[in-house]
């Protein structure tokens, strides 16, 4: 029976992965999205249901290195702000669609118009900001904004450009699955698909085909996070994957330390959100005291298995975004666990402990509140348990509640909570990183659904800084505004960042090398095309 | 050598739950070829167990614990199943006590015949067999559930005769059947037996039937044979006091003067070893030696008997103990308490009760007799307000229209009208004590306090002859014998001091020896308390004993009515005559007169 099992016969690592033409034969990747019973779907705008191949078939005007947040020229060789409301992209020469037709600014304009016509496809909400997209010539695209558009730039670079000659034939592009040989400009083409495996192959006519050293990528269907997938990874069946693996060092790296590697760069901040409309959380001194109350290290080692890093109080993701940090900040804004300090600060702020060791509020009654955590997020639950322990040690009467995720989300949105977890930041769009959690226009009265300002931070100074950031086109001004916002975070403590969510990324270097890692963080793991164009056959 | 020789056979049930029970104890007898032997005995005396032992069909927890059964030279009790197989059915067949359940429900009657023939590699003509028992050949295609009880019994009988056996064991083959149907089958059986010449062991506790059918009769008591005599001789002279008591409870209803006897008490617990004669506690003529010396089955009279007194040659007359003599007067002057006029009850299209009129009078018993399904119970339901008549009126004390009562009014009507149930085993809640059962009507209808109710309950128990009452109050139904239960049921019906008592076949589930006792009790209550009683039965003997008037019911209609003796002695209607003919008649012509 051994070896008859279809997949395992072709799997496995080791040499022999390199074909004579200097290409890696194929690489085994993990999941390709599309649910447990994926159906062919290469409509790049159907984010929820499209398959992972989309990232390799279609391309964008610019590609962000989302680790350091720097844009790289891609279908556009460059861009220029004519004025704060006008942006011009210059398109690359010699780009062809993989059916041989030439790529031009028409396609770009068509793409934007498509999104305008079909709001369901405009997943980035780009037309909230755009006034018009024009094509003065075949190589130029001019984008007109309703308002100064600097803060919208990152969104523009997230739009996949589709061929007009294919898509204009579709009567209902919203339901267009593009299943047969999807036409794109990207480095790979779809080779074959069944619900168990998706194979894409090198596009020899790619505009930078010389940089693509991989002949084929095979994605394998999996229930992400399943124990079996972890075992497969640890047995070396994947050249790269992105999943949670308990005890990764023992389970994966130690099995072949030369080949097996992982890198978990930080993502958005996971913070303790406090309901700022109620006492005692509306008291700055109280909040400030709490910043040292949580044992982040224990959360990281116990609840997060040491895969993550403590978050900076600034809301920025360090070290990736360190250039945005305000001057003179100790330890990049990370705050150490110091319960004694919290204790004395609380006492000083008018929250003493009574004889029984109960923490009293300003009204003289014991402080009692709940901490909510979605019941099915086991790691968050463990983290919450540590937080509750910390708070209890300080004399607070805290109860842990574990609603299910939708209830949790709705409670959070309408402000029906005392304290809970929230996620913010982590993207390359600094404006969004701060406006979403802090902007007063993202808030709503208690009882009504807030868009994203769940703590209900309502501060004119913050709003002013956000407005400056939104309008700023040059980087110095942007930095100034971001530094101001970071100071709001550290001085006003609208929330208490605890740790950065990790971006899972495991890889093997036996067939291909050149994966991004801590030493060479040229891209974040999800920047697929950047990674692909950096891969080289092992030993070359 | 006899066809069947049973020697000193003992069968013991050894259940895990309780002490072992020796249900058959040292039984010996022979059955000769072509002989028709009856086996009589109270319920639980071990008749079926003995039958199963003969058929080698004992199942755990029962096992032969001694003695042997030899059938036609084969020792059945020690033979293996393989050795038995050629014997089974080819030579020895049976009709079970409940032949309703003894046919395989999922295959046709024809298949069950075929099955039987195939098992013995024989050919047979099922149609002919069915003809023998007067059944149509179309029955072969039918499933058991498509047949009536009587038809099933006949199929079972035909099946038993399929391989022309030499011996047929019939274990109460007609219980649960309508009197008329029963008669029909038994006549057929006797006829076939004479024609085909097989031997029969006929088990029953219905002594009228056994006495009429059998050549020889054996009587079992508490696992032992106590008497074995030719039927005719036994009719004339019963040796054992128990047999005397048993036969004393039979009489021919057509006689102008009749009386019946009964044996009080209940049989001993077979799980306990008993010194001496097992009948001693109930025996009216027991002497001191009876409780210490265990008698043997010794020749006496025309057969054998197990009694010390018989052994010593003393005359035994146990019939003096308790006697119930029918002594009914008939006068019309009394004002009726309930009048039924032209009552009709229709179920869908079926007129269950069709234009029935009668009166119930205080201190008088009206009997309602008829075949099964003739509408007797329906009338009882109308009278007690359980059902409403489709047409006609039922008037209580000239004023209350029973047919229109509901809720509270109905409840208060029931203070005056009570029901005695047919089955004393079903009429008492197995989880409730006697005191509870009796106190409910007292508390509800008479509004007595709990303490008063208990006191009154004790009095009621004494009234129905359960004394000392204190001994019974806290018992659960399963701790009482059938007769005792029926008495509790009667006591409960009497509790609210009703004016009308409706008794729906109150003795049909009881052993013959208890029946007379209950009848005597009812009779006395009616007399003492001036209750108007509607007595429902299919048994003319008990109607004759108890009732002043009788209504004969056929298909919902009253076909004959009048003073009981009149109706029975001078039946006009053919249906009444059919009913009368169905009564087993052990002594052919002249009414049986006891000899002493």
């Amino acid at each position, binding site marked *: 029976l051994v070896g*008859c*099992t*279809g*997949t395992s*016969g072709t799997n496995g690592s080791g040499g022999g992965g390199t074909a004579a033409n200097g290409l890696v034969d194929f690489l085994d990747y993990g999941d390709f999205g*599309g*649910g*447990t*019973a994926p*159906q062919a*779907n290469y409509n790049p705008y*159907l984010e*929820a*249901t499209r398959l992972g191949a989309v990232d390799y078939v279609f391309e964008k005007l610019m590609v962000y290195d989302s680790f350091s947040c720097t844009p790289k020229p891609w279908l556009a060789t460059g861009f220029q702000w004519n004025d704060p409301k006008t942006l011009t992209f210059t398109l690359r020469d010699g780009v062809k669609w993989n059916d041989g037709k030439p790529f031009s600014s028409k396609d770009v304009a068509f793409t934007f118009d498509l999104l305008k016509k079909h*709001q*369901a*496809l405009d997943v980035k*909400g780009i037309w909230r900001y755009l006034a018009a997209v024009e094509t003065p010539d075949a190589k130029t695209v001019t984008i007109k904004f309703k308002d100064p558009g600097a803060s919208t730039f990152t969104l523009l670079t997230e739009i996949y450009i589709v061929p007009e000659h294919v898509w204009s034939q579709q009567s209902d592009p*919203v*339901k267009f*699955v593009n299943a047969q040989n999807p036409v794109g400009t990207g480095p790979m083409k779809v080779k*074959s698909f*069944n*619900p*168990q*495996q998706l194979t894409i192959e090198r596009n020899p006519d790619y505009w930078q085909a010389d940089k693509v050293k991989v002949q084929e990528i095979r994605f394998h*269907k999996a229930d992400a996070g*399943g124990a*079996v997938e972890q*075992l*497969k990874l640890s047995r070396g069946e994947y050249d790269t994957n992105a999943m949670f693996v308990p005890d990764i060092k023992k389970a994966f790296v130690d099995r072949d330390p030369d080949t097996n590697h992982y890198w978990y760069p930080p*993502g958005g901040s*996971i913070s303790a959100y406090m309901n700022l409309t109620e006492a005692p959380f509306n008291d700055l001194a109280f909040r400030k005291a709490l910043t040292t109350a949580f044992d982040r290290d224990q959360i990281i080692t116990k609840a997060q298995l040491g895969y993550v890093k403590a978050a900076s109080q600034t809301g920025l993701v360090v070290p990736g975004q360190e250039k945005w940090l305000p001057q003179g900040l100790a330890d990049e804004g990370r705050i150490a666990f110091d319960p004694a300090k919290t204790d004395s600060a609380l006492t000083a702020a008018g929250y003493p402990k009574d004889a029984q060791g109960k923490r009293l509020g300003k009204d003289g009654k014991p402080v009692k509140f709940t901490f909510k955590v979605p019941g099915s997020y086991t790691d*968050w639950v463990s983290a919450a348990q540590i937080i509750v322990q910390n708070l209890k040690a300080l004399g607070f009467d805290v109860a842990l509640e574990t609603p299910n*995720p*939708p209830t949790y*989300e*709705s409670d959070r949105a309408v402000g029906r909570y005392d304290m809970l977890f929230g996620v913010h930041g982590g*993207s390359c769009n600094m404006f969004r990183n701060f406006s*979403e959690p802090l902007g007063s226009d993202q808030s709503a009265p208690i009882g009504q659904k807030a*868009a*994203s300002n769940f703590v209900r931070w309502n501060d004119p100074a913050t709003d002013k800084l956000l407005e400056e950031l939104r309008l700023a086109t040059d980087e110095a001004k942007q930095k100034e505004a971001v530094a101001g916002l970071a100071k709001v975070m550290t001085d006003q403590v609208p929330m208490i960042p605890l740790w950065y*969510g990790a971006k899972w990324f495991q890889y093997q270097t036996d067939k291909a090398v050149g994966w991004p890692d801590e030493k060479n963080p040229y891209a974040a793991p999800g920047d697929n095309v950047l990674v692909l164009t950096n891969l080289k056959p092992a030993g070359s | 050598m006899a066809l069947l020789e049973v020697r000193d056979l003992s069968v013991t049930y050894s259940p895990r739950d309780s002490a072992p029970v020796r249900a058959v104890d040292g039984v010996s007898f022979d059955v000769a070829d072509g002989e028709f032997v009856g086996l009589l005995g109270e319920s639980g005396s071990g008749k079926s167990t003995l039958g199963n032992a003969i058929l080698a*069909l004992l199942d755990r927890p029962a096992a032969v614990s001694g003695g042997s059964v030899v059938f036609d030279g084969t020792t059945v009790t020690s033979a293996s*199943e393989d050795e038995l*197989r050629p014997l*089974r*059915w*080819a030579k020895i067949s049976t009709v079970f006590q409940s032949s309703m359940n*003894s*046919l*395989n*429900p*999922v*295959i046709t009657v024809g298949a069950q015949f075929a*099955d039987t023939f195939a*098992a*013995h590699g024989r050919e047979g003509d099922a149609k002919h067999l069915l003809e023998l028992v007067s059944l149509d050949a179309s029955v072969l295609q039918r*499933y058991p*559930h498509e047949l009536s009880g009587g038809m099933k019994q006949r199929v079972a009988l035909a099946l038993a005769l399929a391989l022309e056996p030499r011996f047929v064991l019939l274990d109460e083959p007609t219980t649960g059947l309508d009197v008329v149907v029963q008669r029909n089958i038994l006549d057929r059986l006797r006829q076939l037996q004479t024609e085909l010449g097989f031997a029969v062991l006929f088990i029953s506790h219905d002594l009228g039937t056994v006495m009429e059918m059998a050549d020889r009769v054996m009587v079992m008591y508490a696992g032992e044979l106590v008497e074995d005599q030719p039927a005719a001789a036994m009719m004339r002279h019963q040796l054992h006091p128990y047999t005397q008591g048993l036969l004393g409870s039979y009489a021919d209803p057509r006689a102008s003067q009749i009386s019946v006897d009964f044996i009080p008490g209940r049989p001993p617990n077979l799980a306990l070893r008993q010194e001496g004669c097992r009948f001693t506690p109930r025996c009216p003529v027991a002497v001191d030696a009876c409780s210490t010396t265990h008698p043997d089955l010794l020749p006496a009279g025309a057969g054998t008997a197990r009694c010390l007194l018989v052994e010593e040659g003393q005359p035994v007359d146990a019939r003096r103990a308790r006697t119930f003599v029918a002594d009914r007067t008939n006068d019309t002057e009394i004002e009726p308490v309930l009048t039924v006029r032209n009552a009709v009850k229709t179920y869908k299209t079926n007129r269950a009760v069709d234009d029935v009129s009668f009166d119930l009078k205080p201190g008088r018993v009206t009997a309602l007799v008829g075949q099964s399904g003739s509408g007797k119970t329906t009338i009882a339901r109308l009278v007690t307000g359980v059902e409403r008549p489709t047409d006609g009126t039922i008037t209580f004390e000239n004023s209350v229209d029973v047919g229109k009562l509901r809720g509270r009014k109905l409840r208060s009507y029931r203070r005056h009208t009570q029901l005695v149930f047919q089955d004393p085993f079903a009429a008492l809640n197995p989880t409730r004590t006697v005191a509870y059962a009796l106190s409910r009507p007292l508390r509800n209808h008479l509004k007595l306090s709990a303490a008063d109710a208990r006191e009154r309950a004790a009095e009621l128990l004494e009234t129905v002859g359960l004394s000392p009452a204190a001994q019974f109050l806290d018992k659960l139904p399963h701790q009482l014998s059938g007769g005792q239960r029926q008495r509790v049921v009667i006591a409960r019906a009497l509790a609210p001091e009703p004016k009308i008592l409706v008794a729906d076949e109150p003795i049909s589930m009881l052993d013959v020896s208890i029946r007379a006792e209950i009848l005597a009790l009812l009779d006395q209550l009616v007399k003492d308390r001036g209750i108007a009683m509607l007595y429902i039965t299919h048994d003319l003997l008990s109607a004759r004993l108890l009732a002043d008037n009788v209504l004969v019911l056929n298909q919902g209609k009253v076909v004959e009515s009048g003073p009981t003796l009149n109706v029975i002695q001078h039946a006009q209607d053919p249906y009444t005559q059919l009913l009368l003919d169905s009564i087993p008649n052990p002594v052919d012509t002249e009414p049986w007169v006891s000899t002493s």
Partner: protein
Amino acid sequence: MRYFLRRAGFFLATLWAAITLNFLIPRLQPGDPAEAIVSRLGGQSQAIDPAQVEAVRKMLGTPGGNLLTQYGDYLSAVLRGDFGISYTYFPYTVTHMIGQGLPWTLILVGVTQVVSFVVGTLLGAWAAYRRNSRVDSVITLGSTFVGTLPFFWLALVLIYVFAITLNWFPSGGGYGGGSNPGWTWLFFSDAFQHSVLPAVSLLIVGPIGWIIGMRNNMVQTLGEDYARLARAKGLPRRRIALTYGARIAVLPNVTGFAIALGGILGGTVLVESIFNYPGLGRMMLEAVSNRDYPLMQALFLFITVGVLIANFLADLLYGVLDPRVRREEAV
């Protein structure tokens, strides 16, 4: 006829109740499918972009009108067999998705149910036939212990031993990525390989219910008068056991089996999600967790109708197998 009308009435009423329940479930739930979809995309550690939620909401389309007209629309759509578009597999229709999963579930669970039933019934009959012998003890006690092992746990152990350690069988999925679904021998043998472990884990725990049920029924029927009479008739023991014991004892099991067959779609959630098997059970779990209401509603309806039909057939079957059934009382 009356019986048939009654059954049909119950069938329709239940169907209506199931449809209505289906209609209500999404409308009683907190949270928004669009948000659920978006947050699933990002994972729990990523902030939700409201624009994305808005776009997804547009994509899914929101039913218009008041509750009553919505209900009317829903009913008529269901009657037309239009279950809408799956949220998880947009723009594929629910009908398409169910068509994808159905064969897998039917084959895997159908086959194992039938085998479990046959094996369980035979073993149970054997145990009853040899009642209180060693065979009986081995069968009843053995099946008790094996049958009470938690099924999902058993599945994990099987995967660990046979797929991971010994590498005899694939660890999950309906077929390998290398073989494409189609009517080819290669595909079938591949699919068979993949079904071995799930099937085995179902087969280990499957028969116990049938064993015990059959044994108990048969002990009872063998104690009935007709079985005793069969013995008195001198029928061979085996024949008694078969036509008088097993034949009748199996009847309640047959109805149970029909109902179990109807319930297989509902019962496959665990096995399919552990073995990543491409059937309806796993799809249902996914639909529930993704708030894919159209898919969920249709699957629920599908399962309920399956059970209903199975019940209906079981009743009819019972009437065929057991001549005693008085059908008027069967409802």
